């Protein structure tokens, strides 16, 4: 497999939604994939510790919020600033096929892994067709 050089994609700011706290809000990049059992969501949220993530599931709206701890640059003189830091937020609409009580989340190296198991009745059930 050839190795690819990563290109810089600037952090996207979330526009249009107002927050209660001031400060920039960014949209994390996510990968979403599903198997027959569950839907998995991986979100890039660098600088967010596992206790600063909040996951809200409201009816069918899933909202991920990550608060960034300050990168310690208050007392320092800035020489170069190529990126801003701020909280992360992204919302998704999930169908009601998710078993909401069994959602699990883990955080590692700034990547959030959210596993949403599908509700029992949503798992595809094969129906046997008998000849006869």
């Amino acid at each position, binding site marked *: 497999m050839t190795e*690819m050089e*990563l290109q810089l994609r600037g952090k996207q700011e979330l526009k249009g939604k107002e927050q209660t706290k001031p400060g920039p809000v960014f949209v994390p990049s996510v990968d979403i994939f599903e198997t027959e059992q569950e839907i998995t969501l991986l979100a890039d949220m660098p*600088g967010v510790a596992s206790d600063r993530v909040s996951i809200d599931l409201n009816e069918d709206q899933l909202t991920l919020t990550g608060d960034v701890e300050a990168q310690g*640059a208050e007392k320092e003189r800035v020489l170069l*600033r190529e990126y801003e830091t701020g909280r992360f937020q992204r919302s998704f609409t999930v169908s009601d096929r998710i078993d909401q009580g069994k959602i699990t989340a883990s955080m590692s*190296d700034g*990547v959030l892994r959210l596993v949403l198991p599908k509700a029992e009745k949503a798992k595809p059930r094969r129906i046997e067709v008998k000849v006869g």
Partner: protein
Amino acid sequence: MAILRWRPGTFGWHRDPFAEVESLHREMSRLMDSLSGAWRGVTAAGVFPALNVSEDRDNLYVRAELPGVSAKDLDISVQDDNLVIKGERRIAAESKGVSYHRREREAGTFQRIISLPTRVDGGKVTAVCKNGVLTVTLPKAAEAKPRQIAVTTG
């Protein structure tokens, strides 16, 4: 065909024939700058990863956001007055039979060389990668620190 308003001296040689074009050019660049005013801060160099560099009296700090990159995927070195940050971002392959809805995260190698504004003590450089944020602390070399000079009256 453009219609030029006739003014005294329009075709005279004592008037700079390019003045009109230049003022139009200036107006256009001013318009373009105001359109891109939605950008916050400095434009990044366009190379991954984006870096924030800051300093205090004793150290130089270089920070980068590298989600999903752990310490073992990084190769950081200091050569003369340059800091080299190299590494690879891997995305773990998932089990077979997954169907993707969205694929926004990218994997690949990256390298960034940044020239340092002051001399640093190469042997004392430390780097920490926590929660996907890399912080490299470079202590300034003794001769690069500002030295206070006492002023005596006399």
